């Protein structure tokens, strides 16, 4: 039996569409596909003063490859360095200097490690001096920050990008009358980027890594946990990369990777806001139609992967955080029908009225915070539970309490009322996100990057279709102790 919460869903769909109940059917997204294969998703909202614009390439850190962790993230950074037009002062001279820099980098890479051979050490010193000279010259031939400056002086904001496992996203918010600027700047950097200032950018990424991983309470522990969980799959690498791997990445290698991945048939653009769809249908081919379709074969449709987990594994990790336990199970990738049952299951566990808060936080008072999440990736999925210990509660007690919750979930279906409330809350939270045009644009990009934007419009309906028996079945099928990884996060011992 399937639950129905139709009246709320009708309203939610109307809200997401930005129209009245008559416009309630779904997100009224118009699709446009250019001759070169690039896809556009258009969601006009005439009342808005702005346009949210972005594009996604369906290549991210999972495609970095062996020994090249961080490559896609580095490309993402280099895409802000301008193009043959933006940032160029004397392009011909600059390209010559950049070519010389690449030659010097290749020669440096071919030398024996420092201290091994005196001749190489002397040569290294010469080459380093040459590299410094060339860098200084290259800097004279470019306008740094020119790409951001063009957007800034147009009043644009939220200019940013993210590299995720399966995709890389680029987006910005513009005043409505500046939408053509976006077409120009984005097609320009896709068509003719110049990867300037590569070496300083590696330093920037080292600092980003320090900021996001080494200096967050659970950053390093989370990274170790992820690496252990996804071992043997493309998701085991670090999106940010590590200094040693980044050091070996030169401009020609990045350029080859860019040309292989950033092809129009792997790109989807999303526009939400006050634009004229007819004008966009004219602008899209005029600007992005310039990108040539590549002859290389399409790499979409890779098969699902699953971490090879046959017995429970336990990891003890140090963190600068409150003691907590993280439990993760392999589940299903994006698009799998069980995904929505797992999301409903997470909904049942989360929130102030959810089971985890009710039982572990308020009831037994052994947890300070508790959270569950189903994360769908393109080729895999995972269900994660994070429980933060209250006071001195032993972490093993939290694991036992969670096992008790799983036993309840698998022994009997949840009461229909309880599930319905959770589904309503999920629908409300979904709506909260989609009400914001910026997040709506970004969610469309993420769904497009995962392979299909359409479930986004139907998400509350799909989650609401989960019946109590479906939740019970999903818990039984996926929350199996022999397949899980358990991370015990404990504060590092204080120095004496």
């Amino acid at each position, binding site marked *: 039996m399937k639950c129905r919460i139709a009246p709320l869903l009708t309203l939610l769909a109307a809200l997401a569409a930005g129209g009245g109940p008559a416009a309630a059917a779904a997100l009224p997204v118009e699709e446009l596909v250019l001759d070169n294969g690039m896809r556009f998703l258009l969601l006009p909202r005439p009342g*808005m003063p*702005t346009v949210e614009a972005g594009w996604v390439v369906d290549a991210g850190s999972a495609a970095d490859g062996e020994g090249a962790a961080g490559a896609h993230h580095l490309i993402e950074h280099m895409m802000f360095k301008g193009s043959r037009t933006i940032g160029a002062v004397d392009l011909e001279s600059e390209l010559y200097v950049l070519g010389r820099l690449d030659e010097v980098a290749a020669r440096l890479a071919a030398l024996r490690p420092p201290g091994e051979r005196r001749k190489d050490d002397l040569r290294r010193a010469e080459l380093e001096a040459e590299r410094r000279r060339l860098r200084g010259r290259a800097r004279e031939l470019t306008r740094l*920050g020119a790409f951001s400056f063009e957007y800034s002086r147009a*009043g644009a*904001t939220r200019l940013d990008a993210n590299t995720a496992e399966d995709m890389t996203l680029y987006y910005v918010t513009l005043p409505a009358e500046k939408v053509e600027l976006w077409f120009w700047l984005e097609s320009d950097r896709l068509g003719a980027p110049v990867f300037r200032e590569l070496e*300083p950018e590696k330093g*920037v990424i080292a600092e980003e890594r*320090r900021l996001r991983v080494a200096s967050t*309470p659970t950053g390093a522990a989370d990274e170790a946990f992820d690496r252990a969980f996804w071992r043997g799959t493309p998701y085991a690498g670090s999106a940010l990369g590590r200094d040693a791997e980044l050091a070996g990445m030169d401009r020609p290698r990045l350029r080859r990777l860019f040309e292989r991945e950033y092809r129009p048939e792997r790109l989807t653009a999303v526009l939400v806001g006050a634009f004229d769809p007819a004008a966009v249908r004219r602008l899209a081919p005029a600007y992005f139609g310039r990108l040539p379709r590549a002859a290389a074969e399409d790499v979409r449709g890779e098969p699902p992967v699953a971490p090879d987990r046959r017995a429970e594994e336990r990891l003890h990790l140090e963190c600068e955080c409150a003691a907590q336990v993280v439990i993760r199970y392999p589940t299903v990738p994006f698009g799998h029908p069980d995904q929505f049952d797992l999301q409903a299951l997470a909904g049942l566990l989360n929130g102030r009225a959810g089971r985890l808060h009710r039982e572990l936080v308020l009831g037994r008072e052994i947890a300070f915070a508790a959270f569950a999440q189903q994360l769908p990736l393109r080729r895999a999925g995972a269900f994660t539970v994070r429980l933060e210990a209250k006071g001195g509660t032993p972490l093993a007690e939290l694991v036992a309490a969670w096992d008790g919750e799983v036993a309840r979930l698998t022994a009997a279906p949840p009461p229909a009322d309880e599930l319905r409330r959770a589904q*309503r809350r999920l629908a409300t939270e979904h709506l909260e996100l989609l009400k914001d045009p910026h997040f709506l644009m970004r969610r469309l990009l993420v769904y497009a990057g995962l392979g299909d934007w359409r479930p986004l419009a139907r998400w509350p309906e799909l989650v609401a279709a989960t019946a109590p028996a479906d939740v019970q079945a999903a818990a039984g099928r996926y929350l199996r102790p022999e397949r899980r990884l358990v991370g015990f996060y404990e504060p590092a011992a204080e120095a004496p």
Partner: protein
Amino acid sequence: MGGRLRVRTRAVGGAPVAALRVWLLAGERHAATPGQALLAGRMLEEGTAARSWRRVARDAEERGVSIHATAGYEVIGLALDGPATEAERMIEWGAELALAPAFDAERWEWQRELALAELELIRDDPEALAGWGFLGQLYGPHPRSRPLQGDPASLAGLDVAASRASYEQALGAGMIVSLAGAIDEEKAAARLRARFAAGARPPAEPPAEPPPVASGEPRRTVALPGDQAHLFLGRPTVDRDDPDLPGLELLAVVLGAGAGLAGRLPARVREREGLAYTARVDTAAGAAADPGRLVLHAATDRERLARVERAFREELDRLVTDGVTAAELAAARSFLEGQECFRRETARQWAEIMAEAELTGHPVDQPGWGAARWGPLTIAELAAIAERWLDPAGLWVTVGLPSEGTERA
């Protein structure tokens, strides 16, 4: 202003939603004990005389309404967002939550524990820890120097009775109520007045003014978790009524508060020298009833700190000595004017900006107001403002260094 109720409404097109904001003019700035206003504010979503907190949460979930209560330095705030069809109910709930909160002892204790946990989080977050060190250095005894949660000692000194009493006083300090969305403006305004006036308290005595801003030692070192150093440079600048504020806003964009990596500091520190992932700048951050601040911040390796500080100082010096170019001024003006439309997109934003206009006495909700402030400023006037507020010779500095096992600040 004591005890006065001010109501604003606005019909907003687009999605059929409504946003209600209730602001009591009694924030942490006037709290007798640090953390008091925040705890009192958060109790507004913890149940009323008529409904328990569980019932409030369940009713809200059933109707697709979200409720959030908190406090800032100047106000205690209650926010309700939901479908426009629930606007009437949101008014009723808003009045019930704001005028008759239960102050249940058990829930109050839970909120105190939450505040303590948040303070622990700050101690685990290197940027937040260094940032609060900087604010302490800059503002001295003024409440802006401390987190809204107060500190463990001040929280330990509070109890539910004192919290309830402070909230009763807050009700007499004045209230702003705004509602925006797919509504009938006049009917909604009348309903708001009728419902909220019923709970009005006699005007309270004006609260004591907080101690003045008094910056401490010019250079301070804070020990941090993690392995990245943080550098904060700055000084107190102007409050929101100061005529120099529009000029400082333009100068902030020139320095790097614009889009992406635009601006002098990101270009120098990140793009050219690769010293840091972020190089943030603001010239009047947090300008409100009390002065805002010039703040330049970067997170970097400790070996690079001196280079970052030198770059920051040199760029400020260049700005003060050479001023801005006509192209930079035009671009900064264009950026700020372009931003204005982003502030009035949704019902939620309209509800907040109307409340802000009532609070500040400035027509921040009027679309042309910002442009009228920035438009007339000349390069010479910006040079004078830069000289007054951005001179690198008069800065306070907080350096946060990875502690490597040493005791933290």
